[in-house]
Every structure is written in structure tokens, then in C-alpha cells.
């Protein structure tokens, strides 16, 4: 088994204890960091995400795979040399909507999006309307994603959108929404381009939306 295959397997298995050693070995063998990320880590996360979406894997598997990928990335990022960089598919700004303090779903989306090569700006929880506006001005993201767990805070999403419209930024970004009470109908009602029922689908929809945009 090649070292890239081994890293792929360890990520799928969620073996965060052994991944570090293998990743360091790969770097020592002269394998480019970008290659390790694209050929092993991202592919593994895509596989885990697909099997999760199909109901073959469950949340514990996803969480451990995500932890394994993060462990690997934490080792790889500081090892990047001057001319090396992680090729990014696009930039995602994400946050839990105003009034909502929950972040498990949002964090899973971040992991899956990073696994697919997105640069992610995490605005955290209970994000004020103006924070999304500031983040768009600062980072010029391709996609802005709203996460919400509570039915009671879903009502704040139209206000988030209005804040973007008032700032003249709505048409500059693709909007996405997800969370327990969110439905396709809800997204359609407010003209939100991307709705995803789970983190894995969200990452795929982000990739799809960007390829359609280009």
C-alpha cells in the first residue's frame, strides 16, 4: 500500500492517533503537501461524506474522520515551504445565525468544506447581521452560509439577507442555509441558492455551485 493510500485509509477509519506519523513520513519522502491533501485527505473525506449521506456511516464516524483530517492538517500547514500553498476551490464565510448558540452542524460543514479545498472563514455562533456584511467586505467570499438549529431563530435569516441587500452585497455571493428545522421550501422562499440536509451534501453543493458560476 502506498503511503498516500495509507493516509487515505487512516482518515476513513478516523485513526487520528496514527495519522501524524504517516503524514510526516510522506513529507519526508518528498511528497508535496498539496498532493497529500488532494489525493489522500480530501478524497477520504469525500468518501466518508458520501457514505454518511447514504446512511452507511454515522455521526461518530464523521467526527473521527474530521478529527483525523484536522490532525493531519495541523501538521502539514506549518511544514509548507515558501512556494507551497493549499490550492483553494473558493472562499466560504459561515456562521450560526443571530440568537442561535449551536455549532455542531456548522463545524461539520466547515470540516467537509475544508476537506473539499475551501478556505473557510468561521464567524462563530450568534452572529450579528453586520458581521456577515463585514466579512463579505473583508474576505470577498464566493459563498455565505447560515446555520441554525432552532425554529425560533430561523426567523432571523430573512433579516440577515436584508442586511446583505441593504449593504448592496447580496448579488455578490451565493447564499447557503442548513440546520435541523431548515427545509428546501424555506430556502426557496427566501431565494437562498443552496440548501443541504447534511454537512456532506453541503460541501458537494458548494463545489457544484462554484463550478456552475464559473
Amino acid at each position: 500500500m502506498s503511503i498516500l493510500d495509507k493516509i487515505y485509509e487512516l482518515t476513513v477509519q478516523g485513526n487520528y492517533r496514527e495519522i501524524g506519523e504517516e503524514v510526516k513520513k510522506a513529507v519526508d519522502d518528498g511528497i508535496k503537501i498539496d498532493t497529500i491533501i488532494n489525493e489522500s485527505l480530501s478524497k477520504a473525506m469525500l468518501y466518508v461524506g458520501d457514505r454518511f449521506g447514504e446512511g452507511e456511516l454515522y455521526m461518530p464516524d464523521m467526527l473521527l474522520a474530521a478529527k483525523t483530517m484536522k490532525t493531519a492538517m495541523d501538521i502539514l500547514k506549518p511544514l509548507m515551504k515558501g512556494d507551497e500553498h493549499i490550492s483553494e476551490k473558493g472562499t466560504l464565510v459561515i456562521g450560526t445565525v443571530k440568537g442561535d448558540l449551536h455549532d455542531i452542524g456548522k463545524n461539520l460543514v466547515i470540516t467537509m468544506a475544508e476537506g473539499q479545498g475551501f478556505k473557510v472563514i468561521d464567524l462563530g455562533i450568534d452572529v450579528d447581521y453586520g458581521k456577515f456584511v463585514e466579512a463579505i467586505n473583508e474576505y470577498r467570499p464566493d459563498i455565505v452560509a447560515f446555520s441554525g438549529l432552532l425554529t425560533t431563530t430561523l426567523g432571523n435569516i430573512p433579516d440577515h439577507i436584508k442586511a446583505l441587500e441593504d449593504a448592496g452585497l447580496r448579488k455578490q455571493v451565493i447564499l447557503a442555509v442548513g440546520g435541523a428545522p431548515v427545509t428546501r421550501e424555506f430556502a426557496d422562499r427566501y431565494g437562498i441558492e443552496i440548501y443541504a440536509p447534511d454537512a456532506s451534501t453541503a460541501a458537494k453543493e458548494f463545489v457544484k455551485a462554484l463550478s456552475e458560476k464559473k
Partner: protein
Amino acid sequence: MNSREKFLSVMKMQGSDYKNVEIPKVEFGYWAGTIRRWFTEGLPMIENIPRNYSDGIAIMANKNIYGEMEKAGDVNVQPFFNLDQYLTKFPVDYSPMLERKIIDKTETHITYKDEYGVTNKSTIDITTLPMEIDNPVRDWDSWYEYKQHYGSETISKRLPPNWEDVVKNLKNRDFPIRLGGTNGGFLGFPRQIMGVTKYMMTLIDDPELIHDINNTFCRFLIEYYGRICSDVEIDCILIWEDMAYKSGSLISPQHFREFITPYYKRIIAFAREAGIDIILTDSDGYVEELIPLIAETGVTGMYPFEIAAGNDILRIRKLFPDFQIMGGFDKRKMFKGSNYKQIDEELEKVGEMLKKGRYIPHTDHFVSEDCTFEFFSYYRKKLNNIIDDFGKGKK
């Protein structure tokens, strides 16, 4: 029949034979904000919602029978619609009974440690579910320290202080009671003390720790419940889990069988010995794939079957003909912007369910603030009529 007799008659009915069966007219509960809103829309106020209750506090659809040990129960909706008393919770405390402490308070947020030792952050008026910031059990060492709070000597401290009065009052009661509630399950408890992410990773990372937590909790529950059952005739054991989200179960069938099934079987064996043959599980989310796993342990039913999560109660009834089902009326049909036709269509499903038996209809969780009093009234009155037609073999 009184509320208790009606509940038991449906739960124990054979097939769809409504002879000697009456369906209780019940609701699961309401949010305080819902009832406050309804006061402005036509619900006569018998007693105002306590001022210190934020809109996000749950109001159970039953009388408050235990004094200060329980939050206020509904006294306004029940008489207006002539409802029965819902399956009422017996007061239980699964926490290690730690002191609640405020850690930080700003103009908008409050951070506090609760009686489980969980650090939570919430909006200042606690209108939404808090976010867990830190959980007390992280590893074997923290668990060893924590489990000291679950010894036999703690049982008597967990009983209502006016125990003899409670026992006496419950002897000739006219409503059903359940033993079990929030955090009283074998996913619910370890998740509460470890946090959801840590819990789920520990299932794979350190399975023996989860087994030790569940073994300890199971032994504790059997002793605690045994003490209560020695004095009070309990109608139902409830195992609270909330083990699903809108895409399905949080854990795999393999993990369910490994980490949940053995402990369910022990609790159910205890229940049978205590003469309790109604064992329910409470879980939000999409639960269909969990039902066979739950049913094979001996659990007899479930609620509240959230429709927004994708549950199809007619399909579930077809797949599991004997499984007791409560709830399943889609609350979204009563949201502002809905209409009578949508409510009628949802009620048709209820009618179909009632024909099959072992079903108690009510809203699929607490009635939320988005539900208008006009639509709720329409639904509730019509449902009462449907129930009247089914009761006493009149269908």
C-alpha cells in the same frame, strides 16, 4: 373513563378493537410564549404564565402535582378545549445534584454551570436552548470522580421532600404517570455529561468508558426506580434519548446494539417485575430506522414523531402494527400562513391512524409560538370530534 383509564385502554388495546377503549384528548405541551401569544388572540386566561418564565420555557400539558419540584403545568388550554391530562412526569433527578453557579453575566448573555456540572451559555432571557461550553466527564479520571454522586445513599435525597403526601395523593389519581424524563436514557445520559461530540467519538475511541457509564447509570436507575415503585403505582417507564436528527439516527445500529440494547433489556426486565408493561422512548428527529432496534429490546412505543423531521406515521404504523404511537400531528399546519385545508388533510391521517389502534394523537412536540390560536382551535376542536366518533366503539 378518566384520563388514566383512557391512556391505559389505548396503550393496551388489541388491534383496532375499540370495545372498552376511549382515546384521551391530550396535548404534549406548549412553550410559554405560545400561551402568552394565545392570550392576545382569544384564549381565556385562567392563570397567567409566571413572570419569570421566558417564552422558551416548556409548559407541560398536565397539572403541576408536585409543587416546586416541577415547572408550571398548563391550566389554561386544557379546560378551554376539555382536554384530558397528559401522561404526567413523576419528578426524578438524574443529576449529581451539584450547585448551580453563574460564571459570567453580560447584558446579552449568561454563562452558568448547571446541576450536572455542564457549563452552558445562553441568551440572558434564556429564550433559546443553551450552548454547552464544557462538560464534566472527559475521561476515566473525571468519570471516577463524577460517578461518586450516584451511590445508593443519594436515592433518598432524590425523592420529593413531601414523599408521604405525594404517595397518598397518587393512590387514587385520575391521570397516568410516567417514570422517566430528560437525560434518563443510555444515550441521553452519557451525552449530557460528556457533550455530544465527545460522547460520539468515545463510542469508537474508548467503548469501555461508555459501558462503565451506562452500567453505573443502569444500576442507579433500577435502584432509584425500585424505591419509587415500592410506594407508587407507575403506569409507564419512559426512556428519554433524543437520539435522532432529521437525517436519522445519531449512532449506527451496531452501536445501538452494543451500547444501548443491554441496558434497555435490564430496565425492561425491572419494569416487568414491577408490573409495568408500557415502556416508551422519547426521541425527536427521524426515528423510523431506530424503531426495529428499539422494539427488539422490548420497548413498546414511542413519541412524539416529528413530521418536520420526515417521519411518516402511517408508514410506521404499517411497518410496526403493534408499536404504541403518540403524537404525529404536524405543528407546521397551524403556523401563520397555513389554512384550514392543510389542517383537514393532516387530520385525515389521524383518522387513518386511529382506525389501526394503539395511537394517541397530539401535536408532534410542544406547540410552538408560530402556531396561531385560530388554527390551533380549529385543529383541536375537530380532533376532539374525531376522537368522540372513535371512542366507545362508535367508529
